[in-house]
């Protein structure tokens, strides 16, 4: 996946290292290898690899992670502009 890099410096991912208990769940669920566990605490080693899928935040048992999750899909975003985020869906049978 290192061949595929999207826009840098945009992710909404936040990690509260003080709250982290080092369980490693974020490491297991992240599909882009964004995290490592170092001295029993999660560290973000590849912030720009984050695609904001939200798996880490959903699975953090102590809410140390937050991200504004969503799908990186132009059709979805156009719909969210027009209909609002609650009513948007991924195209009409398009991507998802």
């Amino acid at each position, binding site marked *: 996946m290192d061949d595929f890099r999207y826009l840098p410096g945009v992710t909404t991912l936040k990690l509260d290292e003080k709250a982290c208990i080092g369980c490693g769940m974020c490491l*297991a669920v992240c599909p882009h290898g964004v995290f490592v566990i170092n001295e029993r605490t999660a560290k973000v080693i590849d912030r720009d690899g984050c695609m904001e899928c939200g798996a880490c935040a959903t699975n953090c048992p102590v809410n140390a992670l937050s991200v504004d999750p969503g799908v990186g899909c132009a059709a979805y975003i156009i719909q969210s502009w027009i209909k609002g985020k609650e009513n948007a869906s991924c195209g009409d049978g*398009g991507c*998802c």
Partner: protein
Amino acid sequence: MAPLKDEEHGSCRTVKNGCECEEKSNPQVIFSGQAAEDLCCGPPAEPRSSHLEKPGYQLCRFVEKFIETPAGSVPRVKRTLDRSDIWETIKVRSGINRNQYKITPGLYCVGAADHHSPVLVSANYKLSFDALRQALTHSHAWILVLDTRGVNVWCAAGKGTFATEEVVRQVRASRLADVVSHRTLILPQLSATGVAAHQVKKQCGFKVQWGPVRSEDIEFFISHDNKCDAAMRKVTFTLWERFVLIPVEITLLYKYLLWFLLIAFILSGIGSGIFSFSQAWHRGLISVSAGIVGIVAGVVVAPLLLPWIPGKPFSVKGALSGFLAGSAVAAIFWGRVNALEVTALMLFAMAVSSYLAMNFTGSTPFTSPSGVEKEMRLAIPAQAGAVLISSAAWLWAAFGAQG
């Protein structure tokens, strides 16, 4: 759908009795039966229905038998795809019946699954299910299929149908706790967007272990004490993975095609003589060519060459492939179009390609919503501007030529 052994036996006996009865009491029936056979069309009768069939149900071709468990009978599925599975896959990949390609949720198994066997959780999109059972070449396992409304694992997790609540619901509905003695579920890693492992444990007592991203690694995972190596935790986007997405992207454009053709031919016919049908036809074909190469550049070329086209925003990649495609059209019609028309054609091909390539963000496994939104805020005005300038130039050229 339990295997009804008695029924099989019973049905054999019924036939035999029937024959004996006919022979004794009414020989004519046999005669007319033979005559009917000769007269009746077609090949000899098909084999008798499978004893697994049950009125009101349809037996799935991928089910080989049913096994008895403390929670009732469970279908055992084949580990290989047959011809009809492959044909259906090709159709779905081409966009046919794609939104209705589902299987019934619930518990299935492969091999000789017993109470120690692992439980793999999957989506009820048949492509996902086929990928999983095909990957399970040696393992004996249970497959718990969730009701994701026929949507694949990752998209369903994003939509909230492959979710904590659904896992808990299916664990209870299938009475999984009566079927297996352990309390572990293996979930595909990409479902983690929708499933909170600690919540599943809390709500139904089953511990979630995150399996690999790709089903092809599931055998490795099971045979290595439920562990993945780092590469199995990461998504990929290979040339083949990009290629299989293209047919669906193309079929989604059909509904816009008619509008595009209509507008292109009308716009091309307008000139100093108000409207000319012959001009609409000749110039229309040229503008439609630019549109079609723009589509190919955005939907086929940009996705296939994604890692090699310069630029990070997809709209930029699409504009570049559209520039090359537009140049090809300009070269083909060179001599029949002037400089202004070449500009119009190039801009149009670039705008179409840029927009379509940008839409491909939704099909990739690495674009973040924040990034896509940032790119779109710049790209959409640029694409719209290019189409407007292109149309104006195309019109202006028509008036210039004849005026």
